[in-house]
């Protein structure tokens, strides 16, 4: 399959600090891949470069054959990339269903005058919006919470709502920033299943940032390891587990002796 997103030589600096350094990266269509690395390795910065929040100083990012680096975030979202945030960022004072409705923004076309006059097209579109928002809430199992303020939802529900909001923009590529952060093992296992189901149901490509090694190893088809902004390893989960440079980055120098196991990597996270 062809790669849906290709990054070449991407570099992002903050003053003297090189947050992402000459990064090459690609992800196949319909794949689930992860970017891992210690704190401050540049994972979220890389996400921000893809979604247009940061403009990389060098390099190109190509999405479905079009260069997107430096485009404004709203344009990139309209092209089919959506994301969630490490520390949940819902529209707190809006209801759950309104959050989803906002997500549909780039897929709607009518203007304010349609809204004032209530043209037939507008009425049709609003009905479609509402129906789809309910469908999405049903899909993530939050229909009962539809009319509750987003910040009153339980933690796990907020995570799922954020995903629903991203799905509402009909993305082809979904970026999830630590989707299982702060979850207990039970919830984490559910989330892993949910992510897989997402990919299959919506024909998505999913790119994760994740700290939890168990999650990364179970779910990813490909893992990219960053350290100090540089890619130090890439490959299948099994290969990554055995890679001495990865272990060194996570556990420090000298820890690379002995056979690393999933458990070791896990506890390191």
């Amino acid at each position, binding site marked *: 399959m062809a790669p849906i997103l290709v990054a070449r030589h991407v570099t992002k600096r903050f003053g003297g600090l090189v947050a992402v350094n000459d990064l090459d990266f690609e992800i196949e269509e319909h794949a689930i891949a992860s970017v891992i690395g210690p704190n401050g390795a540049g994972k979220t910065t890389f996400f921000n470069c893809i*979604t247009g*929040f940061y403009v990389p100083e060098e390099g190109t990012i190509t999405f479905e054959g079009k260069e997107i680096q430096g485009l*404004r*975030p*709203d344009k990139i*979202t*309209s092209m089919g990339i*959506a*994301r969630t*945030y490490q520390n949940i*960022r819902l*529209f*707190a*004072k*809006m*209801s759950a*269903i*309104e959050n989803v*409705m*906002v*997500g549909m*923004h*780039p897929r*709607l076309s*009518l*203007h*304010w005058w*349609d*809204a*004032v006059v*209530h043209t037939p097209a*507008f009425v049709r579109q*609003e*009905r479609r*919006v*509402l*129906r789809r*928002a*309910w*469908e999405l809430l*049903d*899909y993530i199992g939050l229909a009962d919470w*539809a*009319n509750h*303020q987003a910040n009153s939802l339980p933690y796990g529900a907020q995570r799922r709502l954020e995903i629903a*909001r991203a*799905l509402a*923009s009909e993305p082809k590529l979904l970026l999830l920033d630590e989707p299982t952060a702060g979850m207990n093992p039970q919830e984490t296992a559910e989330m892993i299943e949910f992510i897989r189901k997402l990919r299959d*149901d*919506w024909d998505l490509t999913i790119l994760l940032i994740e700290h939890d090694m168990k999650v990364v190893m179970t779910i990813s088809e490909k893992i990219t390891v960053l350290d100090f902004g540089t890619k130090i390893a890439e490959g299948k989960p099994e290969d990554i587990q055995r890679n001495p440079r990865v272990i060194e980055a996570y556990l420090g120098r000298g820890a690379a002796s002995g056979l690393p196991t999933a458990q070791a990597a896990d506890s390191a996270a």
Partner: protein
Amino acid sequence: MQATTWRSTIKAGLLTGVIALYVALTGMVLSLSKRPVVDKLSLGHVVYMLVFVVMGYLTARRSSWRTTRPALVPVQGLVVGGIGAALLALLPVFGQQVDLSWIFVTTKPNLYKFLLFNQESMAVGVAYLVLTGAALGGIAALLPILPEVLHQGLLYGAGFTLLLGVLSDLAQRTVLKVVLKPLFAYKGLKPSGALILFVVLSVLFGLRHWWLQRQRERSTMEVILGERPAWARGVQQGLLLGFLLILPVWLLNKDAYLNSVVNLVNLYIIMGLGLNIVVGFAGLLDLGYVAFFAIGAYTVALMTSTGDLGHGYTFWQALPLAVILALVAGVVLGIPVLRMRGDYLAIVTLGFGEIIRILANSDWLKPFMGGALGVLDIPKPALGNLVLKEEYQLYYLILAGIFITWFIATRLYHSRVGRAWQALREDEDVAEAMGIHLVTTKLLAFGFGAAFSGLSGAIFAAKVGSVYPHTFNLIISINVLSLIIVGGIGSLPGVVVGALALVGLPELLREFSEYRMLFYGIALITMMLVKPEGFWPKKLNVYSRPQDDTGPATP
């Protein structure tokens, strides 16, 4: 809640004293003393006595003894009021020895006399003051330990009796005078009238509370969320519309003064609806809002005036242009400033408001805009042969303006644009990541706000008949901002509540106008600290499933 101690009570008493001193030093006490509320009790008395009442009440409400040792709670109130009054008494005692008036202009002998109940002997006066403070604090502290129905009934009963007393001369100009006549003296309530009103209102409010309480216990979540039947809402809206249509000619008796106050309130409502889009929906703090009001007003003034500066168009020809010019100004100003962060926006718009005023005032533009002398001789709008020259006739024009702006604001709110505005208000970065074009979305909010303000300004010019640059100062912007915050940010009915409370009341109490800005400032801070959602908070929209939704929940 911290455990209550005598020490915290004394602290509350000291705070009470400081607040009472502050009130006395602002001069409110004396300048409001010419308005009687009940018999000889004037608004001046009420203002500083309210400090003891409110503080006694609040102390009691927050007291942890309310459940453990209820008998001590009124004593607490007594102490708070007493200490507060004693501190206040220091002002006349000290002030009669040392002249303070070169610092505090209000500390004149007649203030001291007033505070000491006009007693010859200082000792007697001080004793009166302290006893009054203690008594008021103690009585107010009783309320929270009474049963809820009594508590709420008495609280609202007393509040509204006072309000009626304050507004007595105005109430007597309305059609209600027939009913109220026996209760009122020439100015203020008769003591007997006050007592009757207090009892009746207390009972009514008590019953209301009891009824609401029962409703609340009975109803489940669904009932609260579910909509009332369509016919009930129709009837309700019909009644409201009917009331609004007959208000100036029936209830207000075509009274020119009362109707002019209502018209002013209504003009502020139009502005409030506009600024509510900018601040309430989209979360952009615009402090130069008066500029668009001025642009609307000057457009109508210059186009229609029959004076030297005018161009002889009719009001109806000028009105659309006024709205459009305001809108264009909004967009032109918006483009550079809307790319900035929120707090810069506040200052730049503030500066813009000042620029417009300075330009209108300048000699440079005097040949076109009249400079400080303003534009005079603006004719009233006419419908065919009917010239809307009376305030009660203009009322309908302004009411139409409110309906139109209200309609547009509601429609926009429930659309893609409205949702984008709210998203923007909640989190700009995420909104952008959701595909919302920040600048156009903000511009749209800014443009609508400006257009509404322009509309209001256009009607204002025609209503008043003349415009001067000094009318359009920052205070109007702050007025509008305060009223939407007091009413409830983002809430349309809140705009009405805010305008009535912050424009209507001060306008009716002319003695109060000097303290208006002080009042707004304090209102802004207190609301943000205590009740940031406002007095009529925005309700969360409720969305039900579309009826034709039958298909299975699949992507």
